[in-house]
């Protein structure tokens, strides 16, 4: 499929020319195919947030170019607003941007700015509310009466209602309880599947990225350190750990097993796949096959029983 996002040699400097100039992005290039679900990870200050604010033209690159859907983002600066509707951006803690009297009106803010007619707005608001699992009864309530998790949903729905081709979410699950995390992320995944929207998800949680994304972009020190499919990135777990990032717990276990000389794959990053691999190993052992990695020393102990 075609590249919906194409970033070429993007660099961004805060306060250029000032004594406190800070480079936030340094020669970043990558492309995203339409329909991909890309997880973006990186340590704090690695440039993730700066990168995503470039996707809809909130920040203007100091140098380099961004193409969204084949069009240069900054070719005509006065038309930048069109791209804001093409790329929906959900910021960290988006519930703090709510301002309308009712949830309905707040969700309708984006579509209204697009100049849609009332019927279409209504359709979109209900659709978006449905995607984030918001009770229609809450739509007429003030957003300030809702709980934190519900507010977050309203805010996410507000962006989804614009029906962007690309949805960018910056830590949508931050500060939510484990149940809330899973819910909101599965809703995003569901939205991705149903609408075919390209999704960029910034997260600190490797588990979340492993579970929902199909590609991972690893940022380190203002540059892209890795950009590949989830399997390939997590197969390079030692490098990730070196970058100060964690890998999913289950990947850690499998890496440890390999270290101990057990023949299991290294690119395991989700629980279902892990279970399959363990059962696979067990049946191999039961069949009398050796599980010992050939070149390593035997240090089996009870490891194969795990």
């Amino acid at each position: 499929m075609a590249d919906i996002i194409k970033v070429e040699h993007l660099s961004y400097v805060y306060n250029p020319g000032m004594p406190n100039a800070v480079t936030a992005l340094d020669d970043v290039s990558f492309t995203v195919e339409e329909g991909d679900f890309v997880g973006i990870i990186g340590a704090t200050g690695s440039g993730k947030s700066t990168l995503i604010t470039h996707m809809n033209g909130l920040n203007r690159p100091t140098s380099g170019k961004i193409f969204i859907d084949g069009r240069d983002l900054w070719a005509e600066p006065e038309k930048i607003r069109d791209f804001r509707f093409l790329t929906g951006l959900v910021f960290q803690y988006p519930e703090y941007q709510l301002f309308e009297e009712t949830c309905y009106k707040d969700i309708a803010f984006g579509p209204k700015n697009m100049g849609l007619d009332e019927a279409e707005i209504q359709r979109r608001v209900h659709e978006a509310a449905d995607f984030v699992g918001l009770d229609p009864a809450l739509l007429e309530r003030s957003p300030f009466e809702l709980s934190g998790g519900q507010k977050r949903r309203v805010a996410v729905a507000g962006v989804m209602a614009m029906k962007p081709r690309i949805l960018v979410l910056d830590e949508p699950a931050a500060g939510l309880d484990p149940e809330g995390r899973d819910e909101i992320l599965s809703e995003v995944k569901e939205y991705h599947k149903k609408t075919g929207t390209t999704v960029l998800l910034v997260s600190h949680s490797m588990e979340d990225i492993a579970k929902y994304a199909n590609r991972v972009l690893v940022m380190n020190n203002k540059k892209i350190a890795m950009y590949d499919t989830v399997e390939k990135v997590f197969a390079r777990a030692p490098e990730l750990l070196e970058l100060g990032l964690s890998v999913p717990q289950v990947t850690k276990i499998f890496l440890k097993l390999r270290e101990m000389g057990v023949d299991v794959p290294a690119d395991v990053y989700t629980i279902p796949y892990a279970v399959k691999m363990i059962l696979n190993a067990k049946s191999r052992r039961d069949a009398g096959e050796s599980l010992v990695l050939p070149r390593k020393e035997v240090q089996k102990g009870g490891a194969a029983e795990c």
Partner: protein
Amino acid sequence: MLRDITIGQHFPGNSLVHRFDPRLKLVLTIAYIVLLFAASNPLGLALSILFLAGMYMVAKIPFKMILKSLKPILPIVIFTAVLNLFFVAGEGEPLVRVWFLTIYAEGVRYAVLMAVRVMALIAGTSLLTYTTSPIVLTDAIEQLLKPLGKLHFPVHELAMMMSIALRFIPTLIEETDKIMNAQKARGAQLDTGKMTDRVKALVPVLIPLFISAFRRADELAMAMECRCYRGGEGRTRLKVLRCEKQDYIDLAVCIVCFGVILASRLVFPNF
């Protein structure tokens, strides 16, 4: 765009100006403002600006920072200058006469002087906030106002309010930036579009900003109560302000400079 607001911003350093006793610095800044108006002839004004430039040099604050602090008040300066230009009536023949507008040489002179004076005023007070951290500054204000406490004036509370307000300026600016970006991402026309649209677009920014300001105030009050904050009564300080020898030397230098500037007005009243 909001990042350009520099009032209340501290520019850390360890220069002579930075280390100068904040109480004296505050008093001298006020004196400097008075001086700007007292020495109102061009020569006096030029000397005052020279003095300020020297201070900025000593403080090692880049001149760009002055421009930055002047930027937000530029519309006011231009506005007053234009008003002065047209409304100050001088003697003799007007320079220009267009329809009902007349410009006198006196008006031009006055407009320029006033604009320069206001800019010097802002630059001067900015130097104070650049070189003094807000906490130290409010400490100084509190100590200077202490005598008023005898008249049951709530000096400590006032100082506390000021330090909190100063402390939250950068936070709120950052917050405004974030909210503006979030609303822009939903198509709010803050940087594009017609003037009326832009004004309307402020509502989605101001409401969340107010809500978050109240929330922050609430949280702060709670945190202060948790630490048993009871106000100024019997409170001791971590850093006690004391004037050292160096401070007196600095003070003397400043007084001499101010004296010279003031004297220049009396000696050369026509310049």
